[in-house]
């Protein structure tokens, strides 16, 4: 027996991080809002325990925002959003989709990183997650860039006895690295089974750094993974990603401001 629940919320916000919560609270002043997030708790990268996340959740709850957590949005088509949760895949209807899915590090291809494709070249997000198991994974990690939790990841590497080399923008010499190569960029990956070294370049200079992990934490790009809501001009979609500010309240305020501006042009629900 199939039961397809038809929900007629007018706006669905994908992402229960600071931006998604900020937008949801603002939009809920004028219309029903539902927030969907693939992680079963709200808070996004700031985490559920963040004090300001708790106050945003209070505000959202007072504004009547409904939550669908632990559910992944996968397709946006004709005013319907396909939402997948264990045991239940449903279409939710909405007039607009606000996508606040956060950022991810640039990939090797986006960075023009060439060479071999061995094990050990990882997005910083993945490295952090793996290191959180508490196992000493690498003796020497090279971290490209200082974004998206590079500092916390470096701390985990060092905590388990490893060394960290930073490669990235000139002028930046992060205190979380044992060694910095500022003003350099990574060019070529070496190693057949496991990463053995990375070749870095600065102008005509080339240097080889032996390492057993190469972690990508540079040039964040907006996550885009809902079919039909990929391109910047996707129909009926407002993207709230990469907002200025590095703390929860500023990002939430910024998201609320953008949502207010955009929503002013939307037709009011009858």
């Amino acid at each position, binding site marked *: 027996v199939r039961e*397809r629940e038809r929900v007629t919320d007018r706006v669905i916000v994908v992402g229960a991080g600071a931006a998604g919560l900020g937008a949801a609270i603002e939009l809920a002043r004028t219309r029903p809002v539902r927030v969907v997030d*693939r992680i079963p708790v709200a808070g996004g990268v700031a985490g559920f325990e963040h004090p300001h996340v708790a106050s945003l959740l209070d505000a959202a709850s007072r504004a009547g925002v409904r939550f669908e957590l632990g559910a992944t949005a996968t397709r946006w088509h004709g005013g319907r959003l396909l939402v997948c949760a264990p045991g239940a895949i*449903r279409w939710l209807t909405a007039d607009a989709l606000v996508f606040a899915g956060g950022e991810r590090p640039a990939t090797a291809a986006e960075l*023009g990183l*060439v060479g071999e494709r061995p094990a050990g070249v990882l997005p910083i997000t*993945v490295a952090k997650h793996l290191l959180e198991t508490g196992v000493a*994974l690498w003796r020497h990690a090279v971290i490209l860039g200082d974004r998206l939790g590079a500092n916390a990841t470096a701390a985990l590497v060092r905590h388990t006895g490893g060394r960290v080399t930073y490669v990235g923008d000139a002028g930046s010499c992060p205190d979380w690295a044992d060694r910095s190569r500022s003003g350099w960029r990574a060019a070529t990956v070496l*190693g057949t089974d*496991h990463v053995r070294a990375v070749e870095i370049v600065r102008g005509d200079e080339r240097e080889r750094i032996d390492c057993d992990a190469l972690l990508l934490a540079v040039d964040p790009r907006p*996550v885009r993974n809902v079919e039909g809501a990929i391109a910047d001009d996707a129909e009926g979609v407002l993207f709230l990603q990469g907002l200025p500010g590095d703390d929860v309240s500023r990002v939430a305020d910024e998201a609320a401001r953008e949502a207010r501006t955009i929503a002013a042009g939307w037709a009011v629900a009858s």
Partner: protein
Amino acid sequence: VTAFDVVVIGGGVLGCAIAARLAATTARVCLLEASADVGNQASKGNAGVAVSYYGAPGTLETDLICASNPRWEDLCARLDVPYRRCGAVMIALDDLEAAALDAVVVEARACGIRAELVDGARARRIEPMITSAAIAAVHLPDEGIIDPMRLTVAFARLAAANGCDVRRSSPATAIDGDGPFRITTPNGVVTACFLVNAAGVAAGRVSELAGGEALGMYPRKGQYLVLDRGLGTRMRSIVFSTHLADTKGTNVIPTTHGTCLLGPTATDHDDPADRATDGVTLAAVRAAAARLVPAVATATAVKSFAANRPAASERTRLRIDPDVPTLLHATNRSTGVSAAPATADRALALLRDAGLVAADRAGSVAALPAVPSLRTSAEPERLTAIDPAYGQVVCVCEQVSAAEIRAALAGPVGARSVDALRRRTGAGYGRCQGALCMAGLTFLTAMAAGTGPAETRLTACGSVSA
């Protein structure tokens, strides 16, 4: 020591196809793959095209392709392999290329293949994405796109389902005798009355171990660029550059994943382990592809990779060794996927001629259980009735559910590395290249393989920790 009638060395698309065919007979069959997964060399690094046309009539290669081509719909439906007969246009950008197209049409028709010469306007109606500079084209409606990795794994799974002993991480380190052969691997010794050498670029080494002829194999590297789904889903057909005497050129190929593949290049070298890409070559690949389909110039690349074709002076080889009458060589430089179904049948026939007793076995398994895909499902809301884990999306970019991951980890020839999972399900193939899901895939692989996170394999041989 385990005794078999036939041992197939090499778990690429040809070795797996041959093993699957042999396993459907009364013969006792073993497949030995040197690396940790099947399809780990040329079979994972090709263009994903099941060609209808590749060259002149009357060659072994053309015969095998022509005999394989009509079978794809049936075969892929039975083996649950993504395939689409989308056709191709081979386009000419100048008079020299246009002149070469005439010969292509004559040659293709002589092979019995449908091919039609069309003008530029007609070519653009067939594939609106091609350049306005195309002055003529050959339309080849029987070209198709296929998932070559799924095909290879499916052949291996079908072989296993019919009793073939599929052993991975089992390189042949010594081969003694010549019927029966005694083959030593790190996972034990096996004996075989007949040996099939389908070891790709390592086939020369295997022949040498078995006392056979010198095969002269060498790696021919091809570099590829993969573009994001935005462009690939808009393409209706494959776009080939005109085949000229010295090159088949760069192509623009939609994939069964919806991405778009540019390439390949062809560089002969001497280190099979070298699969490095370089920036100059990749830029040239993109520029050459943009001459065919201008939109590729600005499209986002999700990854680049290189692979080695098993090249030799003999491009397609399927015959008994001149010195060892129980040794069958099966290698193919460029059209292994396209020729695999017929190669498997022909291999069985050759082995029977050589004395193998292998009657077709009634009741052998001919199909694999289909695992629906969340991404391509027309009615995704019904999938949780099959398995509640369809609602748990592991890879969001490619919309791969925990149900699909579980199916890829389970059963015969299951995935034992994150790469193997990726190859079987597409998880991690997308535009974020695993930034959101690779840790999850690693933990799921670790649980299935019974290892800790540090030892979990990311690639066939490389683990999380060095």
